[in-house]
């Protein structure tokens, strides 16, 4: 059962995001870059959550290959889906930050931005890969192999791109615990928490929607409304073939 607790979670998330935005705009001190710096309070936590989501999807894929439970594939798929959406927001906000802070929309000297682009390029092929495999069982298996490979690639890519010696730009929020004044640190961690909540809520929403759709399909089939012999539509999204009994 995925719908359980969704309402309270959504309310908490909405509250946390509102509180974070209020804190970012009205409470956080303006430092070196003035108003523009506020985008960092959203950009950096969003980026961290995106990457954690990709790695989590890899772990879910490990669980899928280990247990052969298609629900783990569904979880992994939804995690990558949500992280991809977050990732686009990260690239856009990062680009705005680069334009404001360094004068260019894109800065190759910024290793975090570059490795993030690489990771997004890789994950952009996840849905086409799924779509190109018709058999649902093999689709799930291959997608899990992809998700694990890419999940390992995420931290490694960051490490290697960062090795490049040309990167000399100041790292504003690099050393979070060290060089941030107290109030900024509080806002940063608050944003971190609310972005995590947002990710989890969206993940749960999509899981619930997929689950409900599968249940509905099953009920329709039981009622004889849906014809079983209708050709199944090819899809990149996994579908639950059997609904686990609610527990």
């Amino acid at each position, binding site marked *: 059962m995925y719908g359980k607790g969704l309402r309270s979670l959504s309310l908490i998330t909405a509250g946390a995001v509102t509180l974070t935005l209020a804190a970012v705009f009205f409470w956080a001190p303006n430092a070196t870059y003035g108003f523009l710096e506020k985008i960092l309070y959203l950009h950096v936590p969003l980026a961290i959550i995106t990457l954690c989501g990709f790695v989590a999807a890899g772990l879910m894929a490990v669980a899928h*290959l280990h247990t052969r439970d298609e629900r783990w594939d569904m979880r992994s798929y939804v995690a990558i889906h949500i992280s991809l959406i977050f990732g686009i927001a990260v690239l856009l906000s990062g680009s705005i930050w680069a334009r404001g802070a360094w004068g260019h929309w894109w800065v190759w000297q910024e290793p975090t931005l570059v490795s993030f682009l*690489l*990771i997004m*390029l*890789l994950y952009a*092929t996840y849905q*086409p*890969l799924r779509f*190109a*495999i*018709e*058999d649902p*069982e*093999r689709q799930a*298996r*291959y997608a*899990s*192999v*992809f998700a*694990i*490979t890419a999940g*390992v*690639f995420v931290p*490694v*890519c960051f490490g*290697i*791109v960062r*090795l*490049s010696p040309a990167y000399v730009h100041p790292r504003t929020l690099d050393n979070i615990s060290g060089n941030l004044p107290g109030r900024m640190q509080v806002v940063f961690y608050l944003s971190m928490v609310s972005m995590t909540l947002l990710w989890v809520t969206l993940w749960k929403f999509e899981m619930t929607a997929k689950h409900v759709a599968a249940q509905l399909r099953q009920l329709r089939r039981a009622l004889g409304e849906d014809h079983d012999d209708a050709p199944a539509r090819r899809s990149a999204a996994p579908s639950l073939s059997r609904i686990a009994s609610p527990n």
Partner: protein
Amino acid sequence: MTAPRTSSVVAALLRAQLRLELRTFESVPAMWLFAVTAFVLFHFGLDRDQLSGDLASGVLWVTLLLAALLAINRLYLADAEQGGFDGFLLSPADRTALLAAKVMTLLCYLVAVEIVAVPVFGVLLLQPPLGQALPGLLAVLALGDLGIAVIGALVGALAIRTQARDLLGPLVSLPLLVPVLLCVARATAPLFDPLHAGTLPLRWLVTVALYDALFGLLAFALFDFLLED
């Protein structure tokens, strides 16, 4: 029936693969031709007669990487279309043997391509003499080829039984190969510098070696799951 030793299975698969290539000439000649054509393209695209330093290293490595894609796309073609997978799965051999054989096949292809492409590059585009860069270049080529072969063998198997395999193979493998390209191109750049040739940045070599090892382990762990049906 006892399972055959993995090493002999790998040797047999590698022999079969190389014999297939020698009889059909599907991959390597195409890669030769592609590499030389790419050098010509770079000559006109960049409007340069001679290259040195990081530009030379980048042109050489991008060419080799794109040439490798041709082989990666075809690496499992016979297995998928002519029942090679079925035959292999029916045998009691360890499935990892197929991965090892494919990695070695790609390595052989890449070496064969480089035996032609690197001297041609030296003649056509490289400004400093190739001879002084060669010892270091061989080390970089070996590590770079290993990375390309490992990732190519894994992604090739992932892409081959999909409907858009010509598209998915390159699209999935290129982002995974960017760190390899970054390391080997940086390692090669000082070798092609006419002023202080011969200093090989070990840091990049160690990095690419670790990356190769990591993806080797990953391919070893995941390859079985691609061969289940």
